[in-house]
C-alpha cells in the first residue's frame, strides 16, 4: 500500500495542539474556577443546584413590558424577587427562582395565570428541584463519566494497545472540554441533558477515533516501509471521506432538531451538534497524531 504524500497531520500536530488548547481553555479554566468555588461561570440549571422554573404559554407575545409585569406580579404574590424572568419562544414566559414552598408555587402560578388567563392544564409547566436531588445528580454525572472513560480505555487498550487508548481518551477529554467551553460562552443551561449530550459525544467521538485507529492497525500490517507517523497520516487520509460523510449525516438530523425543536430540545441538540463537529476534528487532527507522539521514535519495520 502506498503512503499518502499530501498534508501531514502528524507533522503539524503542534499547530492543532495550539488550536485545541485555545478551544479547551475556556472550559478548563471555568471548570477549575467553579470547583474552587467561583460562581456564575456556568449557567447552572435547577437540576444541579435546586430551584424552581415556571413556564407559561401566554395568549400574547412576550416582550419587555410582559416580563416586567410578571416580575411585579411574582413579587406581589410571595414577597420575594424571582432570579430571572425571560421570554421563551414567541409566547413563552419563563421565570426562574430559588427553591419555593408548595404554597408559594401555587401563589405565583395563580398570580400569573389569572393576569394573562393561562389555561393551567395546558399552557403551564413548572419544574422544582431541591438542592439534595441536585447534589445526587452531580454525583451520578461525575461517576457516570468517570466509569465510562475507564471502561472505554480498557476496551481500546484490549483491542489496540495501551498508548492508543490514552490517545483516544485525550481526544475524548478534549471534546468534553470544548463542549464545556461552549456551555460557558453561549450560556447554555447546564442541566441533566448535559450528561446525556456528553455521553453521546463520548460514544460518537470514540467511534470516529476507532475508525481511524482501525486503519492504522491494518496499515501497520500492510505497509512495507515508513515510520509510524507516515502510517498514521495515510490512515487518516484513507478514512477522511468517511469521517466527513458520517459527520454530515449525523449533523443533518441534529441540525433539524436545532431548527425545529422546542427550547428544551434545542438546549440538548446544540451541545450535541458542537460535540459532533468537535469529535470529527479531534478524531482527524488530534487522536492519531497524539498516538504518534506517544510512539515517538519507533520506526515501523515489516
Amino acid at each position, binding site marked *: 500500500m502506498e503512503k499518502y504524500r499530501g498534508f501531514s497531520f502528524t507533522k503539524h500536530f503542534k499547530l492543532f495542539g495550539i488550536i485545541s488548547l485555545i478551544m479547551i481553555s475556556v472550559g478548563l479554566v471555568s471548570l477549575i474556577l467553579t470547583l474552587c468555588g467561583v460562581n456564575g461561570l456556568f449557567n447552572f440549571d435547577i437540576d444541579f443546584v435546586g430551584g424552581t422554573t415556571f413556564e407559561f404559554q401566554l395568549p400574547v407575545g412576550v416582550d419587555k413590558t410582559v416580563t416586567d409585569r410578571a416580575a411585579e406580579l411574582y413579587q406581589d404574590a410571595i414577597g420575594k424577587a424571582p432570579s430571572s424572568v425571560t421570554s421563551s419562544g414567541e409566547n413563552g414566559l419563563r421565570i426562574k427562582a430559588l427553591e419555593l414552598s408548595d404554597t408559594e408555587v401555587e401563589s405565583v*402560578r395563580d398570580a400569573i395565570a389569572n393576569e394573562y388567563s393561562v*389555561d393551567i392544564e395546558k399552557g403551564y409547566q413548572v419544574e422544582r428541584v431541591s438542592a439534595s*436531588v441536585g447534589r445526587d445528580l452531580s454525583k451520578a454525572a461525575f461517576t457516570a463519566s468517570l466509569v465510562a472513560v475507564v471502561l472505554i480505555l480498557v476496551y481500546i487498550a484490549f483491542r489496540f494497545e495501551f498508548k492508543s487508548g490514552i490517545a483516544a481518551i485525550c481526544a475524548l477529554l478534549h471534546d468534553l472540554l470544548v463542549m464545556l467551553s461552549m456551555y460557558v460562552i453561549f450560556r447554555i443551561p447546564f442541566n441533566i441533558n448535559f450528561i446525556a449530550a456528553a455521553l453521546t459525544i463520548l*460514544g460518537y467521538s470514540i467511534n470516529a477515533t476507532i475508525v481511524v485507529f482501525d486503519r492504522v492497525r491494518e496499515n501497520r500490517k500492510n505497509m512495507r516501509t515508513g515510520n509510524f507517523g507516515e502510517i498514521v497520516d495515510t490512515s487518516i487520509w484513507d478514512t477522511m471521506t468517511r469521517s466527513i460523510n458520517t459527520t454530515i449525516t*449525523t449533523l443533518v438530523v441534529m441540525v433539524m432538531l436545532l431548527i425545529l425543536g422546542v427550547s428544551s*430540545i434545542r438546549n*440538548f441538540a446544540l451541545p450535541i451538534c458542537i460535540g459532533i463537529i468537535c469529535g470529527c476534528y479531534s478524531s482527524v487532527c488530534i487522536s492519531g497524531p497524539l498516538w504518534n507522539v506517544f510512539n515517538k521514535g519507533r520506526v515501523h519495520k515489516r
Partner: protein
Amino acid sequence: MKKSILTLVIVVLLVGGLLFAAIQGIGSFIQPVSEGVVLGLDLVGGSEITYEAVIPDDYDYEALPIEEGMEVARTMMQQRLDALGYTEASCYISGERRLVVEIPSVEDPEKAVQQLGATAVVSFVDADGKVWLTGSEIQDAEYEYSPTDSTGLSRPHVKLELTDEGREKLHSASTAVLARSDGKNYLAIQMDGEQISAPYVNEALDTNSVIISIGSTEDAEAEARYLANIISAGRLPFELMTAKQQTIGASLGEKSLSTSLKAGLIGLILVMIFMIAVYRFMGLISCIALVAYSALFAVAISVLHVNLSLPGIAGIILTIGMAVDANVIIFERIKEELRMGKTLRFAIDSGYKRAMLAIIDANVTTMIAGFVLLWQGSGTIIGFAVTLLIGVVLSMLVMLVLTKALLKTAVGLKITNLKLYCA
C-alpha cells in the same frame, strides 16, 4: 438469478411487513407504535412529583427501618391517589428515601402536590362525627391471625397497639358509644376523613391493644394487611417534603412531540438524499435499509413498551445518523476495492469483511457509554440510554445484513455497471 429474485422478494416482504407491523400492529403481541409506546410526561403533559422523607434527628431506626417506613408511605400515597381520583397515577420508591408520583393530565397540579404530601390523619370517630382518638395515640398497627375459634377457623385481623394516653381515650370513647341507645354503637376508623372500617363496640375497652376483625371473605388477609399498612401510615414517623416537581402542560407536550417528529422525518429524508447523491445505487440500497431500520425500531420500542420522552426522541434521531455510519464505512471500502481493480462481487465481500472490525469496535464503545447511562442515569436519561442501545444493536443488524443481501442480489440481477457504484 433465481436465487436473487427470491432474495429480493423476501426483502420486499420483510420491509413491507415491518412497516405494516409498526403502523398497524400484528395481533395482540405487536401493537401499533402509536399505542405500544408509553409517552413521557414531557410529551403528553402531566405531573411528576418526587417527595423526600424528612427524617427527624431523634428518629428511631430500630422501631421502623427507613425501608419499611417508605413502603408504608408508598401505600399511603397510593391510597390518597385513589381517593383523590387520580386513577391513572403511579407511585414508586426511588433510591433510599424518595417517593415518585406520576400523574398524567392533572387539572391543578399544585393542589395535588399539597394534598398528596400532607401527613395522613387516622382518627376514631363515633356516629356523630366526634373524634375520640387520632393517629398519634397509635403506637403500632399490624395484621395477624386470630386464635382458632369454636369452628376451628383462624381469621386475619388487625391489631392496634395504643399508647397509655390512647388507652384512656379509647376507654372513654367505647363507654360513650356503648351507652348509645340509637343502635349506632360503632366506632369508625377514618383516614383523612374517609371511612376505612366501622367495627361495632361490644364492651367498654380498657386495653392497649385493640383488635379490628375483618370478616372471613377470600381476600380478608389482603384487606387486613392493607388496613394495618394505612393505619401505620397515619403515624408516619417522617414528613414528606416536595423534593422535585415537574408539571408540563398538555399543549406544550404536544408541541414538543410534533416538532421533534417533524425534525426527525425531515432529517431522515435529507440523509437519504445525501446518501443517494454520494453513493448512488449503494445509497439507494442504504435508504431501503434505513426505512427497514426505522420500522424495526418502531416495532421494538412498541413491543418493549419503552417510555419515550424528549431525550429519548433525540436519542432515536441520533441513532439514525449513526446507523448510516456503518454503511458509509462499508461503501467507502467497496469503492476503494473497486479502485484497486477488483471485481464488483469481490469488492463487496471484501468491503464488508474489512469494515466489520471497525464497525464492531466503534459500536461496542458507544454501547459502553449507553450501559453506563442506564446504570447511573435517572428518569429521562434512562429513556435516552434505552433508545440509544436499541438503536445501536438494531442498526448493526439491519445496516450490515440487509444491505449486504441487497447488494449481492443486485449483482445477481446483473446490475453491475460500475458507474452505479461510483467507482
